[in-house]
């Protein structure tokens, strides 16, 4: 040990170890191994696996590998506890969540130290970030429990939630999942990651200490097989997963058609955009907080630096200087910036990706790291777009640097990714920063900041970064079922297979009319060159185009060209919808006659047209009113929750209600700025094809609504498979629902599937805010203030 005089020469920081005694005594107490936490108590340890401290490699605990029967027992306990938990007054649930928050605070240091030992992340982070945010989450959601009935009238909990969480923020991800679930009246079966199960088990003890009723929170430990058993369990109502996009895709397929609710918070390759007028030092420090936070094992880490060419040399110089100052080592040391990588498997993966990147021409600059499961902070330059370092989520302390010329260039680079979780924008120009924030494809945007989290703000991604939000009002909705007024109906019968042969008779018409596809604002002949018969009660009443996959391809292309619609003001969109109602109203009789020709009574046909008109007015009214929120998060930031359109929405309509069914889905989608590719009623598409002239005369820009008639499920499959469709709404058969959900896994598009006929589109269930929520995704933009 150096003397004081020697230290005066070196001015080193010296060791500053956090005392791990109490966490160690807890581990010693459990040296016989951990069981699962089911129905309020720990089971006896079963077949177990070892958990190690990545910083030392030492085994620290034995944890039980959850088998199917363990999962079963946990789900049973959760199921048994759920009705009583949900029936508690909000205030009673609030008191429980409040107690959890308080007890987490009381045990804050214990949890922080344990997390560091288990995960390898620096004590600074567990102490200053992870654990305080855990407490914050429970506090915030104690509040939601209290006011649930006021704020979400009629909504009901999903039931039993199966939650599978990752190893990068073990306790924080637990809080993000458990707090909203419990606040909403659900019960939980949660599996922590196999690398890092200990703080979840500690929290289970703390929950018992805080008096949480038994069965409300169940923790089952194990590996991916245990996770799959939870996700696949037939008595789970809702699955929430945070982890890799790869596993997210598997879960999407596994749960397809099960009727389970699903939210996925997946990977990212988030851009970190530095404009020429940025505070360069601030941006450099931002990189530290972005990618050299938690060893870069952060799904929303700014892992792609995009920097203006004009400042790139200075920025890079300062960044390298800063990187050289980072201290990597013992995560229990209070003066450490980066701790251990969670597991040697991850370390090997990071090293291998960097080697591959290097082999493809990347120039690598690294800081220093000690021997063991540590990886140095790493900067990769000369990374071409196809380099694996530019495309693959590395999940390590590795950041790429690319230059751009103009804001447009920066956005093109930023959005050239399958992901869309987060983005960081650095500029002192408020116009530029907000413009980029609006245009970047990401669920969370931080301006002149990065990696800010708060329970009151939603977190979650666009594109293959998943769907659903955690935190805030939008996060609560993921754990609730919206109120559904009216009685459920009966599933409708499958439509008859389209018959492309000439009909032997036809309707009397003054002049023959040909119904085509409607693509890009123009009528287009079906690519197939075929038509099919549309039947009335007494035989054919007309012919419709027999659509195929190429018509879908064309329609999706046309819909993308109509992207300007999403940028129009709500008022502009409202004007178009009112105008549409006006023109439809002028031809109400013609539409009623058309519906009547399909076999409806005159009266119901008129009622359907009238309901469609009202609906157009309702969504016109909402077009400039379904706006976002300003979340109350942390100072000094304004957190804007903006409702953004999803992009291109695929809509497969019920067979019945050929006009109202179509418009009940198309209107909310376009009111919110989406473009639609819709498959109208397969049996009776002619009410839809009559709409072309209404659209054309209502100033609806071409491509905003595209209609393809023909075999619904075949066309729906093409839409659900399409990588450039953002979301798919499907009303049809049960098999179709499964098919759409399975196919959607390709680009992880959001889906809304229902068996047609159950929802009564003629009543209040046929319109409402639920439709608008479905038509939007929330982007949270954090804007700092203060000069």
């Amino acid at each position, binding site marked *: 040990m150096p003397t*004081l005089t020697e230290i005066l020469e070196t001015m080193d920081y010296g060791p500053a170890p956090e005392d791990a005694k109490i966490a160690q005594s807890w581990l010693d107490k459990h040296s016989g191994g951990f069981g699962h936490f089911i129905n309020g108590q720990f089971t006896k340890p079963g077949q177990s696996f070892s958990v190690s401290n990545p910083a030392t490699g030492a085994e620290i605990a034995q944890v039980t590998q959850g088998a199917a029967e363990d999962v079963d027992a946990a789900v049973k306990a959760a199921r048994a506890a759920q009705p009583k938990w949900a029936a508690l007054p909000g205030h009673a649930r609030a008191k429980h969540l409040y107690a959890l928050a308080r007890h987490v605070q009381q045990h804050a240091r214990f949890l922080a130290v344990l997390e560091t030992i288990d995960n390898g992340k620096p004590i600074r982070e567990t102490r200053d970030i992870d654990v305080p945010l855990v407490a914050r989450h429970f506090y915030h959601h104690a509040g939601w429990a209290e006011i649930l009935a006021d704020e979400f009238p009629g909504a009901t909990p999903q039931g039993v939630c199966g939650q599978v969480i990752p190893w990068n923020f073990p306790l924080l991800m637990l809080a993000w999942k458990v707090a909203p679930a419990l606040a909403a009246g659900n019960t939980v079966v949660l599996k922590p990651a196999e690398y890092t199960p200990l703080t979840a088990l500690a929290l289970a003890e703390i929950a018992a200490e805080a008096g949480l009723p038994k069965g409300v929170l169940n923790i089952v430990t194990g590996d991916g097989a245990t996770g799959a058993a939870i996700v696949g369990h037939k008595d789970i109502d809702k699955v929430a997963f945070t982890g890799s996009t790869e596993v997210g895709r598997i879960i999407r397929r596994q749960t397809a058609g099960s009727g389970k609710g699903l939210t996925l918070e997946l990977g990212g390759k988030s851009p970190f955009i530095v404009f020429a007028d*940025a505070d360069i030092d601030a941006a450099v*420090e931002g990189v530290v907080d972005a990618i050299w936070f938690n060893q870069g094992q952060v799904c929303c880490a700014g892992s792609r630096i995009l920097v203006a060419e004009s400042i790139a040399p200075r920025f890079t110089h300062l960044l390298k200087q800063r990187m050289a100052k980072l201290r990597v080592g013992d995560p229990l040391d209070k003066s450490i910036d980066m701790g251990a990588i969670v597991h040697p498997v991850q370390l090997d993966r990071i090293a291998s990706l960097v080697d591959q990147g290097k082999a493809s021409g990347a120039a690598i600059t690294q800081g220093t790291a000690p021997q063991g499961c540590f990886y140095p902070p790493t900067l990769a330059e000369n990374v071409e777009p196809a380099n694996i370092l530019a495309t693959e989520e590395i999940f390590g302390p590795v950041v790429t640097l690319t230059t751009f010329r103009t804001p447009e260039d920066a956005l093109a680079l930023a959005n050239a990714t399958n992901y869309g979780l987060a983005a960081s924008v650095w500029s002192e120009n408020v116009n530029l920063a907000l413009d980029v924030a609006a245009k970047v494809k990401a669920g969370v945007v931080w301006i002149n900041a990065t990696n800010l989290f708060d329970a009151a703000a939603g977190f979650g991604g666009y594109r293959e970064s998943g769907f659903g939000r955690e935190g805030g009002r939008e996060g609560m909705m993921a754990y609730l079922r919206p109120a559904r007024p009216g009685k459920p109906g009966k599933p409708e019968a499958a439509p008859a297979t389209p018959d492309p042969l000439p009909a032997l008779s036809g309707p009397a018409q003054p002049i023959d009319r040909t119904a085509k596809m409607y693509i890009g604002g123009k009528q287009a002949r079906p690519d197939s060159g075929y038509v099919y018969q549309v039947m009335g009660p007494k035989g054919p009443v007309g012919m419709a185009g027999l659509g195929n996959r190429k018509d879908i391809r064309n329609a999706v292309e046309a819909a993308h060209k109509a992207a300007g619609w999403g940028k129009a003001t709500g008022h502009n969109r409202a004007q178009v919808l009112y105008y549409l109602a006006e023109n439809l109203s002028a031809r109400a009789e013609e539409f009623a006659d058309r519906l009547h020709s399909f076999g409806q009574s005159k009266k119901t046909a008129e009622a359907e047209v009238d309901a469609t008109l009202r609906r157009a007015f309702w969504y016109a009214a909402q077009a400039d009113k379904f706006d976002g929120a300003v979340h109350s998060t942390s100072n000094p930031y304004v957190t804007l929750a903006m409702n953004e359109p999803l992009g291109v929405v695929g809509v497969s309509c019920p067979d019945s209600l050929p006009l109202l069914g179509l418009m009940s889905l198309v209107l909310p989608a376009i009111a919110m700025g989406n473009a639609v590719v819709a498959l109208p009623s397969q049996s009776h598409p002619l009410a839809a094809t009559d709409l072309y002239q209404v659209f054309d005369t209502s100033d609806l820009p071409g491509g905003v609504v595209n209609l393809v008639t023909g075999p619904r499920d075949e066309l729906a499959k093409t839409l659900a498979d399409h990588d450039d469709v953002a979301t798919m709404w499907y009303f049809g058969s049960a098999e179709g629902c499964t098919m759409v959900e399975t196919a959607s896994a390709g680009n992880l598009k959001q889906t809304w599937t229902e068996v047609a006929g159950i929802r009564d589109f003629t009543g209040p269930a046929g319109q409402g805010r639920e439709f608008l929520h479905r038509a939007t995704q929330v982007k949270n933009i954090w804007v700092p203030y203060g000069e």
Partner: protein
Amino acid sequence: MTDTPQHGANHARNPGMALDTAMFEGHGVNRTAAERRAAQLTTRRTVKKTWQAAWLVNAIRCIDLTTLAGDDTEGRVRRLCAKARQPLAPHIMAGLELDLLHTGAVCVYPTMVGHAVRALKGTGIPVASVATGFPAGLMPLNLRLAEIRYAVEEGAEEIDIVITREHVLNRDWSALYDEVAAMREACGDAHLKAILATGDLQTLRNVYAASMVAMQAGSDFIKTSTGKEGVNATLPVSLTMVRALRDYRDATGHDVGFKPAGGMKSAKDAIAWQILMKEEMGNRWLQPDMFRLGASSMLGDIERQLVHHVTGRYAAAHRHAIA
């Protein structure tokens, strides 16, 4: 322990340069980000045990032990100088195994310089004098320059001048430059420490710009505050100034010192500002010729911490020699 380098011992003075507004105009300083970084300085770094003691001893080496009060007298200044010469009691020095330690300088009003010089004779401790109509600086320039010359004649080796805040607030950079350049000339061999009175400048952009002009005009040190503004030394302001002197060095090759002053009272503050210097600038800026802490009560708290380090007991202020 090696002798602590005093001003000018190890590096050439900053000769200044022509006014170049491009070096600071349009230079963005984002307050939110600066505050975030400042807050993290002491959560990312800490020093414990012997290291903590060493860092506190180093802080003493860098303190400009200051009295700037209307009731200063010769006796008061003598007492302060005695404390500067022997900041720690002999048994604490022995416990730390130190045989030589004094503060970086003593800082007084011009009329007190003579008293201080006499009291510090033979110690090598420089006397710093505030000047130029301290603290507001709103006196005719010729009187301010005369005050500098007076203090230098009295024996001050360092002159802590105040800038005209109006020049910054009105962005009259050439007026600011000319003023500081004239003061530098008046200082002669004495070192010029430019007090920016950052609490009056308000924005960090102003702080950055004023820092840069002061350095271009030839300041040897840039200093945050007089201690008389509503807000004195803060970490975000210090971070901004230190980054300015780093940018100035990168552009010109000239090293400029930094002196936070006012509002820093605790041993914890002493550590925090040293962490800032080490992280942003490196060890060189932990030496008293490049870094000073303008403080009066901080020393007492440091002393208490060091007593605890040596004896293992918590200290009482009344048991130590007062300044």
